């Protein structure tokens, strides 16, 4: 690795026409020559070759696609032909057209269904190979989106960009496959050619005068025959040249292949950007939830404790005032005492608005406390087998708090229903009331703010509130931001 790394720039200098001086160019050529001689024996060369060796059969798998397709077509033909005798003779001509159309349709359908998914799988194998053999890590593309229903799935397959790009990779890499095959050929045949002078004396020791068939020697530029021992050295020379060339061919093939992988098998630039943004947004959302939690804890351990102690001391002072104390002093102490208690209440409400402590025990407990404090009676049901992310819990809690407050303020409801459940990857919060209805998210109410906050985690808010009620607001959030 070390020697290869250092020869990189040197080789480049030797190839560059405007070399600084002839002497240094010659020296560089010598170094490059030495590197070329050492090349077959470096770890990198072995890895490149191994990569080519595995890639060649792996790349050929693409030819299975036409095979499968023609098999399918054949099956369709057979099926149609098998049923055709039962059709009347006059219908023979349309029946002959139908298989062609039908066959084409089936092939297209099969392509759409099989290709992106299969290509994704094969692409993953290729990426894995590059990672494990070459140490070249190509990021995985974003997972395929799943559609709903047969047509939805089909559409999702059609729109699966990474799947189709992986398919393109499998086709576009065919020329690269030729280079890789050559690398393998150079190495294998070159090694074989090197052996000629060594086995010749063992097997070709016939009495003089015997006419022998010349032994064939394979090279990339054609083959020649060797009939004498001296000739075997020509085979040896050809073999040596091939073995020395093999690493460079292998490297070219591997590099071209990795370049293609990065372009076609990795996440597209846009997809990568989206993934990055999603991740950084999730961090930001999570982070702000953490900050609020810390802020509440600081208030709890700091200001609230001091204020509670102050109120306690003032209470004690008030008790200890002598019966004949100056009424003004008593009044002042009373006012201070009451002020400290009021401040304590205000601070508690503030802290609760920052991060309700009941959330530490999960959403069900926090919502139960919220429901207990509601001005309108609340029927609460929760079904959360798993805990959502803290930021999602906070968001769901404050959504419920706002909706409850809305119901109490505007709806004249007698009964509110709050229902939280995990549905697939989502947390669904439904708040309903039997009030007057007519809630309009467009009128700059709290509802639009709610929807905006939900959007920061790809959540959404649906409002159903006909005039006269009932009102149902559904907040859907991902379980994890």
């Amino acid at each position: 690795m070390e020697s290869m790394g250092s020869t990189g720039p040197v080789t480049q200098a030797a190839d560059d026409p405007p070399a600084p001086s002839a002497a240094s160019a010659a020296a560089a050529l010598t170094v490059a020559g030495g590197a070329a001689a050492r090349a077959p024996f470096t770890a990198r060369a072995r890895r490149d070759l191994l990569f080519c060796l595995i890639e060649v059969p792996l790349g050929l798998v693409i030819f299975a696609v036409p095979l499968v397709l023609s098999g399918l077509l054949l099956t369709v033909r057979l099926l149609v032909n098998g049923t055709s005798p039962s059709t009347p003779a006059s219908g023979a001509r349309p029946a002959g057209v139908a298989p062609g159309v039908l066959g084409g349709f089936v092939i297209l359908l099969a392509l759409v269904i099989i290709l992106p998914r299969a290509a994704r799988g094969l692409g993953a194998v290729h990426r894995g190979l590059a990672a494990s053999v070459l140490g070249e890590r190509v990021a995985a593309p974003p997972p395929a989106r799943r559609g709903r229903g047969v047509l939805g799935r089909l559409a999702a397959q059609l729109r699966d960009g990474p799947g189709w790009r992986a398919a393109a990779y499998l086709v576009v890499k065919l020329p690269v496959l030729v280079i890789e095959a050559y690398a393998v050929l150079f190495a294998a045949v070159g090694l074989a050619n090197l052996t000629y002078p060594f086995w010749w004396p063992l097997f070709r020791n016939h009495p003089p005068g015997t006419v022998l068939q010349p032994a064939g020697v394979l090279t990339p530029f054609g083959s020649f025959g060797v009939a004498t021992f001296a000739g075997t050295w020509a085979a040896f020379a050809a073999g040596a040249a091939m073995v020395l060339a093999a690493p460079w061919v292998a490297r070219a093939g591997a590099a071209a292949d990795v370049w293609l992988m990065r372009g076609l098998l990795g996440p597209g630039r846009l997809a990568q950007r989206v993934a990055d943004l999603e991740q950084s947004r999730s961090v930001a959302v999570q982070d702000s939830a953490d900050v609020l939690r810390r802020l509440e804890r600081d208030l709890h351990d700091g200001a609230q404790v001091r204020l509670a102690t102050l109120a306690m001391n003032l209470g004690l002072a008030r008790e200890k005032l002598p019966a004949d104390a100056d009424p003004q002093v008593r009044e002042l102490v009373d006012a201070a005492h009451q002020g400290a208690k009021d401040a304590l209440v205000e601070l508690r409400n503030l802290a609760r608005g920052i991060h309700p402590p009941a959330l530490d025990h999960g959403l069900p407990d926090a919502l139960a406390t919220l429901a207990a404090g509601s001005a309108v009676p609340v029927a609460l049901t929760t079904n959360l087998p798993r805990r959502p992310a803290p930021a999602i819990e906070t968001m769901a809690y404050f959504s419920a708090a706002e909706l409850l407050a809305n119901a109490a303020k505007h709806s004249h409801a007698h009964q509110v229903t709050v229902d939280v459940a995990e549905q697939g990857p989502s947390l669904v919060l439904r708040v309903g009331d039997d009030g007057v209805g007519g809630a309009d998210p467009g009128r700059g109410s709290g509802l639009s703010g709610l929807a905006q906050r939900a959007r920061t985690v790809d959540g959404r808010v649906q409002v159903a509130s006909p005039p006269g009620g009932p009102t149902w607001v559904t907040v859907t959030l991902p379980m994890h931001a």
Partner: protein
Amino acid sequence: MTSSRPSHPSPPERAEAAPRPLRVVIAEDAVLFRDGLARLLADRGHRVVAAVGDADALLAAVDRFRPDVAVADIRMPPTHTDEGLRAAIELRRDHPGTAVLVLSQYIETRYAARLLEGNAAGVGYLLKDRVADVAEFADALSRVAAGGTALDPEVVGQLVRATRHLQGLAALTPRERDVLALMAEGRSNAGIAAALVVSAGVVEKHVASIFAKLGLPASEADNRRVLAVLRYLGT
């Protein structure tokens, strides 16, 4: 209420606050508040046998000193969530002789339900703010130590708000509702009479009327009465 009172002996209107000196263990992680509380209790003639900073130390201290009352903060290290509450529940199970008064910056109805769980004898759950009203806090402490109940008015308020749609509750007069709330806090008839500034006989009449309207079993012991009321209110 505060006008002409001698500094130490219990005032006549607080008959239930027996001036019995209590042995108390305090568990509170905020040193400032812990020290203030210890001074307040000492000032009231009680003896603070241990003042500790976390739940494990609380359990150990109760094991060792067998105090009359343990006063515990709910949020304590290491997680600052409900260590104190869990320790209190454990104490109630393992040390029936020690009353438990839980203090918190917040009132959670669920916490109250977990703490009471079928038995309201010798247990209290108050906001830390209540400590500021020294006489009332001392009252609550004595009541709990004597096997009674002290439930924060805010818990009771939440429960009453959440259940006021019930038929029975709607049938109560405003005065009867006040009495019901004070009953739920754990006060005796005498305590209720003092708080509402009426005679004990009037309170008895109200209580009988409430029990009849809500269909609750009449009960002599105050803490049983609390449980009955709480059960009615739906904890």
